């Protein structure tokens, strides 16, 4: 499954970060690496972007971007 499919409150482990170029590098540098634990915390009132807690930081990620990250629930 992908990161955007996590339910609020659900935790998962990142398996693979997709995308290319700057996009992928940015995700990796923020610490979304394979093996990292992620907690889906919530979403903005209009359903997008989504928020996640990774390595102690709360991040807002658009669901289209989150769909490029594969996770194992």
């Amino acid at each position: 499954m992908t990161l955007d499919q996590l339910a609020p409150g659900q935790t998962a482990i990142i398996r693979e970060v997709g995308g290319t170029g700057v996009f992928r590098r940015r995700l990796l540098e923020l610490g979304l690496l394979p093996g990292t634990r992620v907690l889906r915390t919530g979403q903005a009132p209009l359903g997008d972007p989504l928020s996640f807690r990774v390595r102690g930081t709360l991040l807002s990620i658009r669901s289209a971007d989150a769909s490029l990250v594969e996770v194992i629930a």
Partner: protein
Amino acid sequence: MDRPTVVFVGNPNTGKSTLFNHLTNANAQVSNYPGTTVGHAVGELSLPHLGPVRCVDVPGTYSLAARSADERVALEAVLGLGDRPLPDVLVVLLDAPRLARSLYLALQLLELQVPIVFALNMMDEAEAAGQVPDADVLADELGAPVVPMVARRGLGADALLQALEQTLRGEHPAPGPPHRFSEPLRQDAEAALAALPAEMRPPGLPGARAVALGLWVLLSLDDDDALADLELDRSLLATIREQARSSGRDLVSEIVGQRYAWIDAHVSALYGGPLRLQHAVQDRIDRVVLHPISGGLLFALVMFVVFQALFTWSAPLVDGIDASFGWLAGLVAPGFEAVAGSLAGPPRTLVETLGDLVVEGLIGGVGAVLVFIPQIALLFLFIALLEGSGYLARAAYLMDRVLRLAGLPGQAFVPLLSGYACAVPAILATRTMPRWRDRLLTMMVLPLTSCSARLPVYTLLVAALFPPKIEGFPLPVQATALFAMYVFSTVVTVLAAVVLGGTVLAERPVPAMLELPPYRVPHLPTVLRSVRGAVSTFVREAGQVILFATVALWALLSFPRHAPEDLLAPEVIAEAVASGADLEALARPLALERSAGGYLGHLIEPVIAPLGYDWKIGVGLIGSFAAREVFVSTMGLVYGISEEVGSDDLSLHEKLRAERRADGSPTYTPLTGISIMVFFALAMQCLSTLAVLRRETAGWRWPAFITVYMFALAWCLSFLIYQGGRALGFE
């Protein structure tokens, strides 16, 4: 010996500015790096034994190896590239409760092998969360001093100064990276170094720093637009990447992964146990603040207050500035008049001209600059408070989906909202947007938002030319027309953003990721520094242009000068003298017509005639460059009423309605009114906005483009409306 240089580096939201502010006693100067739009602060601190030290605060960054101009400035400051001095020590901020994130940047900096002192900040938050990292263990692991701190309360500041002093004396040698990259990666890094231009590759670069710079090249410089001006050997980089790929390696994953591997292996030990993912207090606040209903209401309330402050609360301050400059002018003017009265002939004219230059040009011009300060100060006060509390990022999060319709990120909301009060502070407020492309796009469309200076123009035209009621139309006509102008402005702003974002500023999508920082009580000195910085850079760097332009515009509408006796017919003079009327006032419309501005109004008449305007409206358009609302007083002058006329002045309404074209038809019809309002909604008629745009985009190129596109848009739409309306039989 030169004073040593200390550069402060760290992630955003780690209290870097607060620490910098505390150590430098807020004496820092905020300015741009030469040739860039990235702001930085330079200050000074005094060490007990070594004395004064130069301190540089660079923009907060998550990595040295990413895409933005901010990160490039941070890198150049850290490495002492270009004409920046090589720092003697780096102060690197670590976020105690969120070490994993800040250690990534710390490792990159350690790779550079420069002397470092780590400030382990936010220890109070770490204690509150029950996850306190061990500073001594961290210092051992990193090979450099680590000072636990609570910067906002000044705790640990003395220990930091002591560590700085020891490091400057060479008591702590420059640490190396605690992690070691794999051998193939080191070789790739050294090979990649050759792709850099010579000036970024100082001779005799120590081995480890060469590897670090090589990794930076591999990680950052691919198709990077922020660094497009660098002359790189891109084919060499492509070859290195291709070779790695063919042996099944992905360089980006390797570089980033090997740094995080060290972090993951050490973080739990530093905290004495695994980190929890949840953060009870913060998450509980977020459940309310980001809730669809309570969060929406809070957002509306906060934005209402910000807008109210700009639109309404700033008014008394603005009026106060206006009044005090009027008072000053009133104080100075009689002096010049008295001197002029004692003279005759050319000296008298000279003194009169000089008096007008001082009173109307210079005093008016300085007033035109200072009048922006209340709004700038108020807006930056709110932005700094919202930023310091952690809410600004959440406002962007809440608005992201909405602004995506315009191709903009959520951070554009506060600047765009501010634009409805005034584009000048709003353009400055785009500094809170991290990505340059998004920021530029926001600045390009901001002058289209319906600023408060347009309102008097709309009010004048609507009140003078629109009937209060139309049969069969249930709403009050005039209020509906005003409202329609706001809707029109908003729609055009969004459409312009979509079009410009898809053409001039087209780009491949970049992930719009945003950190939602922890909630905190804003740190007042940091807030005040932000306000002071915004105001002082505006006055210093945009003020000159505004002052010069205001004086030039005044000269345009005042020269060449004519005595009333030369303008008025003898019988008019005789009648005026007999009835005691003011000759000067009688002659003013004619003087204006024969000024350079009046001549220019005639000159542009053929261009604006298809929009339904005559030369008098042309003069009004020229006058409105000082500020759009000046249109009203210029029309007052043109029609010989007075300069002090307001948009609700009935005599001006009468004059407008009575004005006739050569064929006897009225000049001002509702259709002309709409055409003028649309022109004012779209045209770039604000010198102050241009001055600020020049300052924020570091040149005239973008202001010139914005001026051209806005005037083209204004002319075309006004033309379509006026000519289309006439073809359909309206007037």
